């Protein structure tokens, strides 16, 4: 027991009198049980939204990009807004599983699996937009530097849009193997518990024959650690590269050196908000309240508060530098007096309200430990972070260098339908995941049971008094 010593000041991360076997049973329960009516209703809604989105995508490809609300001046709007929004959401998953692993944060274990799943599913959605916003989707493979019959015509490595291709595909594939490798022991647990032959077959296939040998565990932990070490700079670089789509341009409001860290902070901010939204529901419907506790929710709120603070400082900096630069063009950027009072004033103030003002309520312990308030704030932040990207893209494009090309943007139903479709697709994947995958990394959780389980902590407390 002494090897499991933990400072008594730390609150338990596993509530109740749980044993190793209880963890197994609780994690396996949603997979082994049957979906209830509510799940089917949610799944149907998500599926309908997804199909609606597919229809809108096919309509766009068949008819042309002109069915969107884009115009000659504002040639990026909902497409890239949604792209950056989804990529941003995807960042929390890797942050939770990689950065918190490097910092040896035990509370990550209850939430990392779902956060990583969310990453993967969000990056899927993000990955759609760079493809479907192309005028000629069928030529998309030209972005890859493949030797070809055009004298070997290569790509131009100076473009951040090409960097995006490398960044997003690396991010998705590395996150995927990181997640999957972590799943092996949990699939093995499901395989060994399976009673139905079909289920046994499926989980045998998925678990890659994991047997839990000592040497396997040693390598497994080293691989996890190295992948965490690689995923951490990857997370920072991916959203940095996404931010360079704007930062390396010459457009007032876009050309800004603060974008790389500021976008990353915003990504973590919105990503944690999405994790919060999903986990607050999941802990209830999957009966995981013993593992996703108030401590987890509060810790995530603290990260949201921190990154929200960083984002707010960035807003002030942008606003200040816009004025300080003395450049008259900076008067109409997305964070300027011009934006606050111009035709997009509502988008400007939506950003300030949702990202700057509301998250500050999390300074109060009463509010950040309140599940209903946490849920509300997490939704507000996701709306706010959508507006942040919308403001950066659309407001800056609407008031450029030349007043004769000042214009406004309004989305068509196709823009909206595709966005709804990606939300539907996301939830289709997440709902399927929640019923078939072990949603908590039970093998990892078992390794902290003796140090952070409520019963064990109580036992130690009794012994010392």
């Amino acid at each position, binding site marked *: 027991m002494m*090897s499991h010593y933990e400072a008594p000041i730390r609150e338990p991360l596993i509530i109740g009198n749980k*044993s*190793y*076997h209880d963890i*197994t049973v609780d994690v396996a329960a949603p997979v082994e049980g049957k979906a209830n009516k509510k799940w089917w209703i949610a799944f149907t809604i998500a599926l309908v939204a997804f199909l609606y989105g597919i229809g809108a995508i096919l309509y766009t490809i068949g008819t042309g990009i002109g069915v969107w609300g884009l115009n000659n001046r504002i040639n990026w709007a909902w497409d890239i807004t949604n792209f950056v929004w989804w990529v941003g959401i995807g960042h929390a998953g890797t942050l939770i599983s990689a950065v918190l692993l490097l910092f040896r944060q035990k509370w990550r274990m209850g939430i990392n699996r779902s956060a990583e799943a969310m990453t993967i599913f969000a990056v899927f959605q993000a990955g759609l937009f760079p493809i479907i916003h192309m005028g000629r989707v069928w030529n998309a493979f030209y972005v890859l*530097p493949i030797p070809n019959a055009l004298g*070997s015509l*290569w*790509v*131009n*490595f*100076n473009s951040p849009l*090409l960097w995006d291709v*490398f*960044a997003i595909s*690396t991010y998705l594939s*590395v996150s995927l*193997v*990181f997640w999957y490798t972590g799943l*092996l*022991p949990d699939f*093995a*647990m499901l395989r*060994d*518990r399976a009673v139905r032959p079909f289920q046994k077959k499926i989980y*045998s*296939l*998925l*678990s*890659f*024959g*994991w*047997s*839990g*040998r*000592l*040497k*396997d*565990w*040693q*390598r*497994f*932990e*080293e*691989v996890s*650690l*190295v*992948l965490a070490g*690689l*995923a951490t*700079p*990857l997370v920072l*670089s991916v959203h*940095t*590269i996404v931010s*360079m789509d704007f930062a390396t341009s010459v457009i007032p409001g876009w050309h800004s050196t603060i974008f790389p860290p500021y976008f990353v902070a915003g990504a973590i901010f919105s990503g944690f908000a999405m994790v919060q939204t999903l986990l607050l529901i999941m802990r209830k419907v999957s009966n995981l309240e013993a593992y996703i506790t108030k401590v987890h929710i509060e810790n995530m709120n603290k990260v949201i508060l921190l990154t929200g603070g960083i984002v707010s400082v960035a807003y002030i900096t942008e606003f200040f530098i816009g004025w300080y630069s003395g450049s008259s063009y900076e008067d109409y950027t997305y964070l300027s007096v011009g934006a606050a009072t111009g035709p997009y004033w509502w988008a400007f103030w939506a950003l300030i309200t949702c990202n700057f003002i509301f998250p500050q309520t999390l300074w109060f312990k009463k509010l950040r430990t309140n599940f209903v308030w946490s849920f509300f704030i997490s939704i507000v932040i996701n709306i706010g972070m959508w507006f942040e990207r919308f403001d950066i893209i659309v407001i800056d494009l609407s008031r450029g260098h030349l007043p004769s090309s000042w214009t406004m943007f309004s989305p068509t139903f196709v823009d909206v339908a595709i966005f709804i479709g990606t939300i539907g697709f996301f939830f289709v994947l997440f709902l399927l995941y929640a019923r078939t995958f072990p949603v908590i990394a*039970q*093998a990892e959780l*078992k*390794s902290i049971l003796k140090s952070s389980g409520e019963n064990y902590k109580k036992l130690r407390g009794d012994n010392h008094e």
Partner: protein
Amino acid sequence: MSSTTIQAIFDDDDVLLSAVKDLKAADYHIEEIFTPFPVHGLDKAAGLKNTRIAITSFIYGLIGLAFATWMMNFMMVADWPQNIGGKPSFSFAENMPAFVPIMFELTVFFAAHLMVITFYMRSKLWPFKKAENPDVRTTDDHFLLEVSTINDVKTLENLLKDMGAKEIKTKA
């Protein structure tokens, strides 16, 4: 004289850890240990050498970096030294900053994926691989220790029982 392998099942990781330490001290040969989760310190106690998988990752990363550098130098400077937006394409160094993002990404890509593939190959894990844990409970809450002896089997069995083993089987 052939050796006999005995399987002992434990239901607590701390008991297992001290049993492994004691067995090592008594010079028994531990064949294999199956655990449901990583037990910290068990690899040291069982006398396992450190894994070198992180070193392979470093080498793979260097390969990725070299590949990215070579690829972009070839395509942008050697093969088609074009003027794209006034960027200097006369030498690699002049346009290097624009190549950094992809040099970085490919380093990570190679380091991560090749290491994971190495892990799967070294640990013999693949989709149709059959699981080899002798008892299904070892992925839930039991710990299985395989020890071999050429001497008195009974002594070892009693020793394991004293150490806290819940079940003892002789491997067929």
